[in-house]
């Protein structure tokens, strides 16, 4: 949603005072603590035509991600690595404020931030996805569709992407007479780490983890921090306000702690699948 669309969400603005009152008492409008995330539900293998898929509900935000694996040319400068592309769209079903059409800058940012988290964490060992070095590699497309938007699309989309990748069955391609042939067998994805993104919104001096749409309509600024088992791999500050260095350090701490819980949940999917 662009800022002009946001300003039309009058209900949220009317609730701003209510939200302030709640926050000053240490509670959020939906009763959560500042560092409490909404219930996270992950279902995998929901689309049989995809090589891997996941449907994630984070509160009322709902995202579905599908993985499609094919072969193609490697990216320029990355000749000996498979290609991994994460994209995202917000479907017109997701909210009354979204219209069909080419992605606006918020959606472009969403897709790029999720892609960055997966790429920079080196979640997938892309060097294992080469058929003919420099010429033919595996190409993995992860497409995410937001079905219902109730805030924090960044984390929901990231979890859907990671869940779909973790549970994907990679087709085994072989070279026969210089042609790519699908052997009909599958193998697990070469996973090296599990990136987890945690987003926080600042409203005044309060920093809230996993903001709802209502909270996002009142927020001054937003920060998304992605961690791996070993440390940090991606960050994005968003929206028009700012943060103090201390607020950022606290958000980074929260991302590490909260990230562990979500990672355990995501890793559970991998085990069940294997």
């Amino acid at each position, binding site marked *: 949603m662009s800022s002009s669309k946001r300003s039309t969400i009058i209900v949220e603005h009317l609730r701003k005072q209510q939200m302030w009152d709640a926050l000053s008492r240490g509670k959020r409008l939906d009763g959560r603590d500042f560092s409490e995330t909404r219930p996270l539900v992950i279902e995998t293998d929901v689309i049989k035509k995809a090589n891997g898929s996941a449907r994630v509900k984070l509160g009322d935000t709902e995202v579905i991600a599908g993985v499609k694996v094919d072969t193609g040319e490697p990216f320029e400068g990355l000749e000996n690595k498979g290609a991994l592309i994460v994209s995202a769209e917000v479907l017109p079903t997701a909210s009354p404020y979204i219209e069909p059409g080419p992605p606006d*800058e918020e959606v*472009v940012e969403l897709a790029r931030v999720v892609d*960055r988290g997966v790429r*920079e964490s080196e979640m997938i060992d892309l060097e294992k996805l080469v058929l003919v070095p420099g010429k033919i590699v595996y190409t993995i497309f992860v497409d995410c569709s937001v079905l219902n938007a109730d805030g924090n699309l960044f984390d929901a989309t990231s979890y859907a992407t990671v869940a779909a990748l973790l549970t994907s069955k990679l087709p085994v391609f072989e070279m026969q007479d210089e042609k790519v042939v699908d052997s009909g067998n599958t193998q697990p994805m070469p996973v090296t780490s599990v990136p987890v993104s945690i987003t926080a919104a600042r409203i005044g001096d309060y920093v809230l983890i996993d903001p709802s749409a209502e909270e996002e309509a009142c927020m001054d600024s937003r920060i998304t921090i992605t961690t791996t088992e070993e*440390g*940090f791999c991606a960050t*994005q500050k968003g929206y028009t306000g700012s943060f103090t260095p201390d607020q950022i350090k606290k958000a980074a701490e929260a991302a590490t702690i909260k990230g562990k819980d979500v990672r355990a949940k995501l890793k559970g999917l991998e085990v069940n699948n294997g």
Partner: protein
Amino acid sequence: MTQIRNLIDENGKRIDGRGADELRTVKITVGAVKNADGSAFIEFGKNKILAAVYGPREVHPKHMALPDRCVLRCRYHMVPFSTDTRKNPAPSRREIEISKVMRESLEPALMLQDYPRAAIDVFVEVLQSDGGSRCAGITAASVALADAGISMHDLVASCAAGKVDNRIVLDINDEEDKEGQADMPVAYMPRLEQVTLLQLDGRLAPEQFDECLEKAIGGCKMVYEIQKQALMQRYFGNETELREEVQ
């Protein structure tokens, strides 16, 4: 990524001869575009970037106007010959994202409520690119906004820090960005002590996150001094000379 060569030598010097805490040469010229209401040309290492500000002016299309404040619009654009291989002039997804984070990094510094129903347009054109073009662009845009006489709380200074050969260093250049381990661009308002841009690409150990952030903020403070000097030179440079002549 496989390390092809060492980016830091045994004496702690980086490939362009800088130390870990050294900024590249930064030069800012205020008022570089005659027609613009405010402008600045910045050379940040090998980056050559022009920023021009038009406004406050009437909003087109009119329905974009806001009743209580000014609309800030920002475009970050790379010209086709600015990169190693020709860049398609159409805006890429990268440029759309940078335009957005750039606008969001400048907005906290501006008193937009002073200009209701108006628009301020910021155009950032990268003529020659090096690492850290978004930081250089924000730095130049902020000076251009000041040059345009827009009411501001503070200047926004921007600089990146990153990880190269497992060490945290200031102001990543092109080679270090491509072959290094992490890049963290930061924009900061030094007087208000507020971070207005923060991104991270690449892996950092938990204790390196704070170190990298602090280093980048330190870099922003250095850039801030250069911004202030450039504005002083533009507005008071001749005056000092005149005063000396009179005496």
